């Protein structure tokens, strides 16, 4: 944080490495069995969600338990854009971000009157209200339990304006100027937005605005006595963070055009908190790591079942196998949440700084005892990772 003049060399490197790593994910995730488009899209989308959440939680320390509401609104707005205007992804994303930002402005304006756990409960209450309303009264907009889906009879005004050919059979698919937004193109679309999102978050972290937010986290009382009105700073951070969530939500709809209320439930809010903490709240790359790891485990672990396990442990004698398979089976398949809960406890207990903190410790462990030059390189690393 000492080098705040312009994006420094370190930051440029960081963004380049980040971009390269994200775009090359199909390559380096292949050996881990993570190279299929659905999963890659999820990495990118939840990465955006977590990075945005981190702008609020990581910088200001305000723990929102209601970010899922913005995710859901983003999805609904995007699907409506597909239904009413066009199957093009760009307007969908724009509407998703806008509506989420609008909702965040309202919820933030009210919730930010309180701090600490009162703030958390307020955001939780607002999100649960959105969720319950989406299920009940707002059914005309959300299509209730079934979820909002595309239909052949949708107006799609803009699409009809530009093509007069007869509507093709079946549902149209989302696209970006002719390119279908499923599979790898969909991933690359999300990845580009993730990189942009990461860049913006980096700039926020390094800006005076970010510094002020860190000040609020560190000592809000002193912050007020420096003459700063903290409210607009907090509200801006909240809205930006909500817009990231809206972007993530709209991308969920872009890659799979349906939206359901369960996206707004508080468990979804809890998930993004987990991701951020797991990776390391307040660090730049942590939330992305956390999001990737959780989504990876979710996909890999939940796909295991007893027959897969039988095969995996087939080298064991039968008597041992009979014990091992059910025990391991508790942790995988539908029981993968158990693994998640345990992982989560372990991280909070032993590594409150998250994975980034862990890497830092390992890095310091291997470089400690060296000369001054090495200490400096640790500092440089810290800056890059922060």
């Amino acid at each position: 944080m000492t080098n705040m003049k312009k994006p420094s060399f370190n930051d440029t490197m960081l963004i380049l490495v980040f971009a390269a790593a994200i775009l090359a994910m199909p390559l380096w995730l292949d050996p881990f069995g993570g190279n299929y488009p659905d999963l890659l899209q999820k990495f990118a989308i939840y990465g955006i969600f977590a990075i945005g959440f981190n702008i609020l939680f990581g910088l200001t320390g305000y723990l929102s338990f209601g970010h899922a509401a913005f995710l859901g609104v983003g999805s609904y707005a995007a699907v409506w854009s597909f239904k009413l205007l066009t199957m093009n992804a760009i307007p969908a994303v724009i509407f998703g971000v806008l509506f989420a930002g609008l909702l965040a402005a309202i919820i933030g304006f009210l919730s930010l009157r309180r701090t600490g756990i009162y703030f958390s409960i307020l955001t939780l209450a607002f999100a649960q209200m959105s969720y319950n309303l989406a299920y009940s009264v707002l059914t005309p907009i959300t299509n209730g339990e079934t979820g909002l889906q595309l239909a052949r009879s949708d107006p799609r005004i803009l699409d009809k304006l530009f093509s007069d050919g007869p509507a093709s059979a079946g549902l149209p698919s989302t696209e970006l100027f002719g390119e279908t937004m499923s599979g790898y193109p969909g991933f690359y679309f999300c990845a580009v937005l993730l990189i942009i999102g990461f860049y913006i978050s980096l700039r926020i972290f390094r800006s005076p605005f970010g510094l002020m937010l860190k000040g609020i986290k560190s000592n809000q009382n002193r912050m007020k006595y420096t003459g700063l009105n903290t409210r607009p700073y907090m509200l801006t951070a909240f809205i930006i963070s909500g817009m990231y969530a809206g972007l993530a939500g709209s991308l969920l709809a872009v890659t799979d055009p349906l939206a359901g209320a369960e996206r707004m439930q508080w468990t979804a809010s809890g998930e993004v908190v987990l991701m951020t903490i797991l990776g390391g709240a307040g660090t730049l790359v942590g939330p992305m790591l956390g999001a990737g790891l959780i989504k990876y485990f979710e996909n890999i672990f939940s796909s295991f079942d007893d027959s897969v396990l039988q095969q995996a442990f087939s080298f064991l004698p039968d008597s041992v196998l009979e014990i091992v398979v059910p025990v391991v089976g508790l942790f995988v398949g539908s029981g993968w949440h158990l693994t998640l809960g345990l992982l989560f406890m372990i991280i909070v207990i032993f590594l409150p700084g998250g994975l980034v903190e862990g890497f830092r410790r390992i890095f310091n462990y291997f470089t400690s005892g060296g000369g001054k030059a090495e200490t400096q390189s640790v500092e440089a690393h810290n800056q890059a990772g922060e």
Partner: protein
Amino acid sequence: MGDLVLHLDNINKSFGGLSALSDVNLHVEEGTTHAIIGPNGAGKSTLLNVCIGRLKPDTGKVTFAGEVLTGREPHEITQLGVARVFQTPEIFQEMTLLENVMIPAFSHRDGAFRLNANKLLSKQGEIRDEAEHILEDVGLKDMMLTEAGSLSRGDKRRLELGMCLILRPRLLLLDEPTAGMARHDTNQTIELLKKIKSRGMTKVIIEHDMHVVFSLADKVSVLARGQIIAGGDPQSVREDPKVKEAYLGGAH
């Protein structure tokens, strides 16, 4: 001596029936150092909290340079040019000294909300120079990249003073700036406060170390049991029999 700049008129404040301040009137001249002394529990900190807007008085009002401070938000009061050093240093523990000082520098410049980061970024050089300068003033420049939480109590106090000075306040309120300090640290702080005396800001100091009071103050007011019982220049207060009684016959 200059004009009267800070007025406390008929301040009353009680906590659940217990009167902490009763009918306090205090007027401070511009550019002077005004000390408020008194035995423990006399209401000194309450008085300061009323000044800075942390507590709302039951009756009465506080005026500074023609502006009513009573009922305003802390950040508004600070923007009017009132800065405060707390009894336990309020600093940004997890940040470097440089950041600690740069944050108020930004606030001072942009107390009103602006998100125009790029424009500010170009000013960072300037703000950083200013911050380093202030750190030099308070004697902490060689430690500017260390974390504030690791400082000694005396250094934390100095840092907090620096954070207030960078706001270029017209009125500086100090709540026992040498409480809990060793003699050596106390003398250093006195020197520092003397050094900034030349900057023409008005200072109100709460203190019960007489050594500090008589080294710094131009005027002294004595607060006992929530009332001002004496006031004037240090010499006359020292000889006032009422003061002796309050200190010797009172709480001590």
